[in-house]
């Protein structure tokens, strides 16, 4: 963050900078105004003050002048000590001759005019001189001369500057403090909104989430606009799910029928099939089944998206589940020369689960295992851990690296490059989802080049309890 780039500044600092600058600008303007006012009015005030002193001094000295009392006049002028800015003073008699005098600094030996001059004021080099007539009973009895120095003016200006700097510093810190307090009212709700947005963005796009609208200000507007945006997004997503749902539903039955017809032809119902025709029909059946699987997966996904998937949970034996799973794959494995091993299927473990969904999950796992294994074996191992039933699918295939494992159960993987190998790639996401909704789970361990082990966990059926906990 550069000090000079205002647009890159955090909002917190922007608010503080704006507050402090506007405070200081206002303050400087006020101080400047006072300063200018002082500069403009001070000479006049000074002259008035001096004239007042002259008036008082003159008035007090009428008797001394009238009755020729130098001593009293001298003493009276000495009272000017009370005003340190008066540099010198001189009293003249009615002939204009010096009568009594005063000097603030005796050593300075200020000169005063030898004889009285015309009444009036004169300002030169900061010092102010004034001549005043002294009247008594309508008769002029003498003159008074007063002179002030520049000291007072300088002192005043210095004081002004000091006060300005002091007040400037104080108000700078006060406004800094106030700004640092007040900026929170803006930045904190904003941070909350931004944090929540990031939460939503990172959290797999859970578009059902909404921001809390904290106030009626612009930040509240942002939250509201964001919520409206999320609502719109959800509508679009729902439309997409509906479309997929309708299309896949419409496609599923025809594809199943085509597959059925191909199977019938292969079974010879339509007459003798020669080896060349059989070859084509086999290919058609593989493609047809692939399509069927893809359509089923899409349908499952759209159901998951719309939240209409429910588990139909009953006691079911693990042996039955395994049997249903491997039924369609024995042929393929035989063709690929893979050995299928079954372990623990005879132990009579009963699961409390949705049979069809467990079977579909297992078929996905077995399908993947066969696809990824070119030689060796695939093992289905049934066991139990506490009150959980465990079915593991192990292969001796190519295995997966860490990066692949990390995103294995997410639906985003579908769009990845490896779709060529694992089909649509939605299978694992669907399988894990199916397991999760029946209090089970699906996990994986794998090692590149040695094979993978998928572990499917579902609750066991407890005879005493009657239902699963």
């Amino acid at each position, binding site marked *: 963050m550069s000090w000079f780039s205002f647009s890159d500044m955090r909002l917190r600092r922007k608010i503080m900078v704006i507050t402090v600058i506007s405070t200081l600008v206002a303050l400087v303007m006020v101080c400047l105004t006072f300063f200018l006012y002082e500069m403009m009015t001070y000479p006049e005030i000074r002259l008035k003050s001096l004239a007042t002193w002259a008036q008082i001094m003159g008035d007090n000295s009428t008797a001394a002048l009238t009755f020729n009392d130098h001593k*009293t006049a001298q003493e009276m002028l000495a009272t000017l000590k009370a005003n340190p800015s008066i540099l010198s003073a001189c009293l003249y008699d009615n002939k204009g001759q*010096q009568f009594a005098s005063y000097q603030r600094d005796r050593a300075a030996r200020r000169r005063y005019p030898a004889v009285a001059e015309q009444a009036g004021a004169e300002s030169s080099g900061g010092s102010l001189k004034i001549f005043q007539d002294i009247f008594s009973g309508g008769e002029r009895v003498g003159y008074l001369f007063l002179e002030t120095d520049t000291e007072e003016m300088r002192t005043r200006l210095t004081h002004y500057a000091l006060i300005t700097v002091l007040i400037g510093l104080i108000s700078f810190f006060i406004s800094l403090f106030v700004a640092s307090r007040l900026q929170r009212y803006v930045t904190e709700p904003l941070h909350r909104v931004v944090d929540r947005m990031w939460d939503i963005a990172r959290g797999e796009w859970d578009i059902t989430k909404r921001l809390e609208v904290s106030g009626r200000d612009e930040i509240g507007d942002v939250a509201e606009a964001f919520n409206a945006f999320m609502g719109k997004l959800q509508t679009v997503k729902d439309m997409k799910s509906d479309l997929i749902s309708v299309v896949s539903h419409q496609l599923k039955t025809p594809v199943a029928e085509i597959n059925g017809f191909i199977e019938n032809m292969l079974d010879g119902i339509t007459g003798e099939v020669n080896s060349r025709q059989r070859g084509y029909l086999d290919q058609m059946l593989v493609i047809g089944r692939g399509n069927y699987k893809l359509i089923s997966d899409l349908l499952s996904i759209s159901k998951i998206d719309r939240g209409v998937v429910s588990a139909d949970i009953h006691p079911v034996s693990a042996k039955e589940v395994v049997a249903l799973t491997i039924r369609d794959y024995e042929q393929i494995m035989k063709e690929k020369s893979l050995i299928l091993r079954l372990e623990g299927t005879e132990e009579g473990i009963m699961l409390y689960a949705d049979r069809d969904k467990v079977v579909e999950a297992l078929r996905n796992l077995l399908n993947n295992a066969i696809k990824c294994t070119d030689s060796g074996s695939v093992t289905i191992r049934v066991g139990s851990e506490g009150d959980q039933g465990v079915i593991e699918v192990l292969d001796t295939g190519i295995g997966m690296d860490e990066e692949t494992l990390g995103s294995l159960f997410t639906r985003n993987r579908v769009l990845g490059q490896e779709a060529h190998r694992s089909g649509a790639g939605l299978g694992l996401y669907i399988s894990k989802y199916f397991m999760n909704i029946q209090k089970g789970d699906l996990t994986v361990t794998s090692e590149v080049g040695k094979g993978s082990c998928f572990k499917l966990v579902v609750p066991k059926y407890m005879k005493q309890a009657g239902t699963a906990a």
Partner: protein
Amino acid sequence: MKKFRRITLALVLAIAFPAWGQFSEYAVKAAYLFNFAKFVQWPNGTFNSAASPIIIGVLGDDPFGGDLDRTVEGKSVDGHPIRIKRFGAFDVTRVSQLQKCQILFISYSEKDNITEILGAMRGTDVLTVSEIEKFPILGGMILFDQEGQRITLAINPQAAKNSRLTISSKLLQVATIYKSE
């Protein structure tokens, strides 16, 4: 410090001296006599009207010659013109005349009658001025005194107050203050 001030004063006096040195003693005293009118306030009812004259009486031999007349000629104080009245030697039968003055100068020639004169003037609103020694102590108001060449004033404010006269503090400031015995 005090000494220094005295030297300064002496210097100032030396400079200023020629300024009044050219006037005779009685010319100065005549001016003073007139100026007293500016620093003294007479009680209400003293003057019949705003233009009533201030009468300066001279009792006994007139030492001013023509100076007093020249000083007051054409002058007025607060609208009151100045009038001079000469009475000659003190005469008990003319006391009521004396009492009509605002300022009464008692000449040195009346030195022997001073107690009697002051007794007659007691309680009247007449400002009494004289050059007779101990004048303020005897119950007079203003004495022309002498300090070297300089004419100074000695005042008995209590005596003035008894006659319902108000002497300005400015005048008191330049005078030596005395009390009656």
